[in-house]
């Protein structure tokens, strides 16, 4: 699940061919245009950027000359500053009367020459002041590149550009001096050397930092291996600089930078030259990651700037000042069982509400209303419901809210605090009344109640407190705004039945944020995590955390799942002595947690997979097709080329009893998932009736803990989604239950009766059925019936019994061979080996002759019952006799025992 970075549709690059007066948009490969008649341009939603050849020629002619003269002026100004400093000291000493004793100095300081020198020095201060502050006081600032509406894009492509609707800006004005330096230094004889430009940029410390953050380690050797030479990065006419600057501008706009810096120039070069892109790919990186790193840096810079209240270029929001509390009421009692969220966010210094802009806007509009100002956030746990409240608190603190929310305090209600306080005062009702009066009178309080369901009487009774009944009437008729949070399951369970409560609140549905928003949240935590754990976090680690959390931690939602994963990876890195956390480390941590291979193809895991087929064949006799199909599915899953929204594999095993359908599933669970016990087996004959649908979905009627059996399929899958799920004898289930399989097979999920989503995308689903067994067994009894004929007839019967839409959704229907006598003999051998293994634990060695397995097979063979009679036969005849000999003391520890033919015959 790759992250959608949202670079698309923010900018459009094109060129105007003046010769033919045509316009062409550049959509894929970025060309270097050198023809003077080709004019490049870049469009954003509201701006039109262009660059011309005379501008470039002007820069090349003037920039270095101006720079040189400016440098000289700077040196002269510094030199001329010195006498001024001495004279200033002299003036001071003269004022203090010290100089009167030193006649020469006194005369000089009192002379006009000293005054002139002092005046000139002061003027030099102005020059240096100008030199240092001219760019800082009036910095250039690129506009934000907003998404271009699709309609506008379509219009540009079909009818051309309506120039009048855009503000025209010159790209060259946004190029900073370091970028101009780099371009001018590498342009000689009217030719720009892209190879030397790249080399010069690549070694800059800020570029090296970007590459380090992106976990890219490029050496000279890697460059030469990828054919990065002077031939592949050639010299161009100086007119090519226009293309490079426009592409760098594109990067600056996409990464929310304020000007075109050397890092944008190097990104442009990486984007233009295929050999450089190839070099990035060999490092398992991309332009996207580098852009994200630069965007992160721009964000950090912007964050620092936002705190500068005395900078007139930064917006200032009023906060109320020292006397703001005077105009609002006291909340003495309320303070005992509430926490001030506004103060909490100041202390924690995190950034809240990322990715929930729409919800925050909706909340602001609800809170800004005259009546019914209560809002209820409904969403899955971990989607960021509390984060939105904190985001609002942060905006109130900064003053960036409408008038109705200015100076408001958000107080988080603490139900346990109220219970504790009421036990002291012995009068809960009186306490609540006083608190509610304070709330109504204060006028600056927004009450925030987390887990709102605790105030619903039915839930409160479950939790064992009686506050709900007292508090609820005040909440229903509140004259102050209330914010509440509740998850879907509780909303459905407790709020549906309370019409009055539902009417009192405006519901705001909180959706899981996008992966790119989750990535931005992780980015805000980077500096804090690095400080805490004394490590360095690379961007691939953050990206892996988001992607893997989205894929493997479906029981939790973004961003909390990704935050938890990156924190665990950081903690692991600290304890393991790792200083640079990469994507592989995050995969490793998750892999350790889940007990399955995740991420890059580990050589050890690959060997395990290569040997899986071999190992399974050793334990399973005569079912090569089924083994092959399962192993192939696991290989696809391992190298990540399977569909991530479906189970790893869905198979229907068809065959008579005793052919090893269940056994193969157990062996698979043992070999791949580590333990045969991790297999979830569901006997579908238990779900024959229509009423059993609810039981299958973890129904309320099946209640014990939290409204359902703790061992239902839903619970088992939730606690261990990395497993083999075996639906035994599926044809016996009610057709409505079989319909649920459609959702599982298609979307890899199942919605329980409580509205929870259960994830099957990491499971192998195996259904078994005895349909067509009689036909398959005919091949054993009737030599005229071939295996293919029997199989076809069994499939016809299967198609009649199972709906085609379900049958169609299996990855493969595997028909198991009934065991012939040879298979049974091999199975006997295997079972004897298992018995021998068990006896080894008691230091007894079991031996048997070559004929013994064949004898067992022929004796126990019961056509139609498969391998089960063999098992029983060995149990009765071999195990029974060994037990007898052990009890009689004829065999003791350290001895050898041989299977006797007499035991069988």
């Amino acid at each position, binding site marked *: 699940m790759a992250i959608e970075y949202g670079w698309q549709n923010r900018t459009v690059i094109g060129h105007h061919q003046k010769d033919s007066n045509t316009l062409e948009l550049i959509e894929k490969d970025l060309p270097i245009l050198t023809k003077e008649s080709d004019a490049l341009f870049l469009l954003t939603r509201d701006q039109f950027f262009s660059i011309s050849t005379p501008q470039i020629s002007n820069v090349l002619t003037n920039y270095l*000359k101006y720079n040189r003269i400016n440098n000289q002026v700077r040196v002269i100004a510094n030199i001329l500053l010195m006498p001024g400093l001495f004279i200033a000291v002299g003036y001071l000493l003269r004022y203090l009367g010290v100089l009167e004793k030193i006649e020469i100095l006194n005369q000089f300081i009192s002379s006009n020459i000293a005054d*002139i020198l002092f005046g000139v020095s002061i003027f030099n201060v102005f020059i240096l002041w*100008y030199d240092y502050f001219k760019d800082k006081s009036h910095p250039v600032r690129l506009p934000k590149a907003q998404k271009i509406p699709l309609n506008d894009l379509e219009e540009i492509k079909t009818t051309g550009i309506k120039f009048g609707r855009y503000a025209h800006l010159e790209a060259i004005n946004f190029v900073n001096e370091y970028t101009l330096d780099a371009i001018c230094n590498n342009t000689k004889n009217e030719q720009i050397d892209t190879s030397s430009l790249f080399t010069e940029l690549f070694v800059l410390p800020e570029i090296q930092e970007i590459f380090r953050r992106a976990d890219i380690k490029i050496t000279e050797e890697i460059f030469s291996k990828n054919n990065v030479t002077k031939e592949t990065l050639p010299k161009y006419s100086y007119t090519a600089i226009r293309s490079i600057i426009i592409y760098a501008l594109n990067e600056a706009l996409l990464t929310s930078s304020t000007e075109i810096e050397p890092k944008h120039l190097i990104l442009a070069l990486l984007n233009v030259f295929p050999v450089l892109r190839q070099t990035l790919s060999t490092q398992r990186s991309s332009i996207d990651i580098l852009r994200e790193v630069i965007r992160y840096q721009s964000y950090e810079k912007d964050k620092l700037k936002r705190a500068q209240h005395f900078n007139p270029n930064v917006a200032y929001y*009023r906060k109320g*000042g020292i006397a703001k509390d005077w105009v*609002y*009421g006291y909340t003495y009692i309320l303070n005992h069982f509430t926490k001030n969220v506004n103060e909490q966010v100041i202390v924690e210094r995190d950034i809240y509400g990322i990715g929930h802009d729409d919800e925050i806007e909706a909340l602001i509009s609800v809170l800004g209303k005259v009546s019914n100002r209560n809002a209820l956030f409904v969403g899955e746990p971990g989607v960021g419901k509390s984060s939105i409240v904190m985001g609002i608190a942060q905006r109130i603190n900064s003053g960036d809210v409408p008038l109705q929310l200015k100076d408001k305090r958000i107080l988080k209600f603490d139900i346990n605090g109220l219970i504790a306080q009421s036990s002291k005062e012995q009068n809960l009702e009186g306490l609540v009344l006083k608190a509610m009066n304070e709330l109504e009178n204060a006028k600056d309080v927004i009450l925030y109640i987390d887990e709102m369901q605790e105030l619903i009487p039915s839930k409160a009774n479950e939790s064992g407190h009686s506050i709900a009944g007292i508090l609820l009437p005040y909440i229903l008729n509140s004259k102050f705004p209330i914010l509440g949070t509740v998850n879907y399951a509780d909303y459905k369970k407790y709020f549906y039945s309370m019409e009055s409560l539902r009417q009192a609140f405006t519901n705001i549905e909180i959706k899981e944020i996008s992966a790119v928003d989750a990535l931005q949240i992780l980015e805000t935590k980077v500096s804090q995590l690095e400080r805490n754990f004394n490590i360095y976090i690379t961007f691939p680690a953050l990206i892996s955390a988001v992607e893997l959390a989205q894929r493997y931690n479906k029981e939790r939602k973004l961003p909390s799942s990704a935050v938890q994963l990156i924190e665990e990876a950081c903690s692991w890195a600290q304890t393991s002595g790792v200083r640079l956390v990469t994507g592989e480390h995050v995969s490793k941590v998750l892999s350790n947690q889940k007990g399955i291979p995740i991420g890059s193809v580990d050589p050890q895991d690959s060997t395990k997979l290569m040997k899986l087929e071999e190992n399974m064949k050793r334990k399973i006799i005569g079912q090569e097709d089924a083994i092959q199909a399962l192993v192939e599915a696991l290989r696809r899953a391992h190298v990540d080329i399977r569909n991530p929204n479906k189970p790893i594999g869905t198979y229907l095993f068809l065959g008579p009893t005793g052919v090893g359908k269940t056994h193969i599933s157990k062996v698979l669970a043992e070999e791949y998932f580590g333990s045969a016990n991790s297999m979830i087996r569901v006997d579908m004959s238990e779900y024959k009736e229509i009423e059993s649908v609810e039981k299958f979905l973890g129904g309320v009627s099946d209640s014990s803990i939290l409204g359902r059996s703790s061992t239902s399929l839903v619970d088992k899958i939730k606690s261990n989604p990395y497993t083999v799920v075996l639906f035994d004898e599926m044809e016996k289930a009610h057709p409505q239950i079989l319909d649920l399989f459609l959702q599982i097979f298609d979307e890899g999920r199942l919605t329980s009766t409580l509205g929870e989503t259960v994830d099957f995308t990491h499971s192998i689903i195996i259904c078994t059925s005895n349909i067509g067994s009689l036909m398959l067994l005919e091949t054993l009894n009737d030599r005229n019936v071939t295996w293919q004929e029997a199989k076809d007839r069994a499939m016809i019967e299967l198609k009649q019994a199972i709906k085609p839409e379900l049958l169609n959704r299996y990855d493969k229907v595997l028909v198991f061979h009934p065991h012939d006598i040879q298979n049974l003999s091999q199975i006997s051998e295997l079972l004897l080996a298992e018995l021998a293994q068990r006896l080894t634990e008691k230091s007894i060695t079991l031996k048997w002759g070559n004929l013994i397995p064949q004898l067992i097979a022929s004796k126990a063979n019961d056509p139609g019952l498969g391998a089960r009679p063999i098992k029983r036969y060995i149990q009765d005849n071999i195990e029974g006799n060994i037990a007898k000999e052990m009890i009689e003391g004829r065999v003791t520890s350290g001895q050898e025992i041989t299977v006797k033919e007499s035991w069988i015959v």
Partner: protein
Amino acid sequence: MTQQNILTNSQGQQLLDESRVDNILTIIKHTTKEFLNWWYVKMTVWHLRMLVRVSTILDDNLSISLLIKNFFLPWHRDFSLIGYVFGILIKILFLPIAILIYLLFSFLYFLLICIWVLLPIATLIYILKSLLGI
């Protein structure tokens, strides 16, 4: 995608000057012009904006507008006689001090702007006066 261009004006502007720079005099002329523009136009406007910002921050931190707007509101919304009297009394005592601080700092910053504008001229006059005195 190729199409007829409907752009009518894409001439653009020159970075430094229309002409190619060949001599030091042009550079000095240009730099002096830029310096004067920065000192007297750009920075003066910047200082005026700063004056507005300083007065906004002072007003906000001293809660002057807020208290004037809510002058007759009782102390901590205690709608009793004592609340009303105490609230108005406190505001009568606090507001003059706050307004004085506000005016003082705003005036000081305004003075700074005046000094800023006069500084280069004053320095030049100082140098000229000293030169004439030799």
